């Protein structure tokens, strides 16, 4: 597990209040019942503050799974 994925996993566990959550690149809203539009924005803001990045609404709207979120974080941090 890469360092970014491990940190992202912590953010997911925090936001969804589930310590057993294990996020993979292909984890999507379908796999996490609580991941609805309300939680989506909480998740995005939590990721922004944890990684010190900022997403545009285009990026937020287009996100399909944790892998894309990961790729976006890595792109912004590069």
């Amino acid at each position, binding site marked *: 597990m890469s360092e970014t994925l491990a940190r992202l996993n912590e953010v997911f566990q925090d936001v969804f209040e589930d310590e057993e959550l294990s996020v993979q690149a292909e984890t999507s809203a379908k796999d996490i019942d609580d991941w*609805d539009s309300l939680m989506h924005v909480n998740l995005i803001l939590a990721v922004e503050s944890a990684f010190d990045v900022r997403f545009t609404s285009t990026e937020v709207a287009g996100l399909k799974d944790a892998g894309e979120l990961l790729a976006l974080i890595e792109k912004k941090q590069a």
Partner: protein
Amino acid sequence: MNPTIDLTSPAFWLVALLAIALVTPITQAGLKRWVWAGVNILFIAWMLRLRTLEVASAVVVAHLALRLLACGSWRRAIGWAGLALALGLFVMRKLPGVTEDLGLGVVNPLLVAVGFSYVFLRLLDAGRVIYEGGRPPPDLASTVNYLLPFHMLAAGPIQSYEDFVDQPAIAKPLSAEGALGGVERIALGLFKKFVVAYLLGEAFLTGFHVGGAYFWFEVQVYYLWFYLDFSAYSDIAVGIGRLMGVHTPENFNRPYVARNMIDFWERWHISLSQWVRRNLFIPIQLGLARKAGGGGKRALLIATLAFTVSFLLCGLWHGISWPFFAWGAMHALGLVVTNTYRHWLTKRVGRKGVKAYKEKTGYRLVAQVLTFEYVALSLVIISYPWKDLL
């Protein structure tokens, strides 16, 4: 009479046949873009009998504005000016009286004919994505093809700009099966619109001029009629798109089985609800959440505000009038209630509880009937002959 897109017109089908014959066999991306743009301009010029020069000039202006949004220190100012201009044109499209008063009476029929309500949404979507650096701006041919695709002008779907850019420049060669699928889809659309919806309309619809029990019967039939007629346009567009190798998004997925209003908008006019999500709901929600210093406990309140503003604007997009405002408010209320209830239920019975609850057939049927009736009543608001009451 002002020209409009008419599916009974032989010219529409001639252009469709020409487009399929010309665009489908091309295997070179640049050539395909230009031939497809040529067909779209030809459609505007010939079928709509429009002032081609004016339309072409407007496309060039839009093209330059979209390119400028991607670069330069002026892009913010260009963005605001472009938005103001597009909004001004939108108001002229929706309120012909304003156009007359300004001495610009000729503009409204042009805007009506090119389906400016939809062009407006595509323009805003492209503008936002390009401004945010999500995708590069289009070349001139792609500007024509994105803003004025002839088969999507009448009633959508509204392709997202990202989807438009990301689609393969050359689709897979059309197989016999694919061609048959496309033709079947067009036939289905024609059957729905010109046979089923037509007969339903002739047999049962009175324009809500009959009261009592019949009124309630008509409410049910009207929703069915509306769905059949509207989704038929999408069937025809998707079918033509398939035959041309031009990606055309799906717009409906059995909306009458929706079990709540959020589910409904994931099934009805999907390309519009996705547009609202990308361009209104998410930006409003993100903006408010950032202002509040994180969503947290206020997430529900923020979502409520975002739903309300988004769907009031969505109502006004359909028509700048009180019935459409009320329609938007009714849908916003339905979405807010669904969202709040879902949130409350999850807190109360947990995720597993919600899942078990969702699987119960009885609950599902009640939810489906309630949603169906709620949507049906919202359609009455926009179609009821209110003037007769005055």
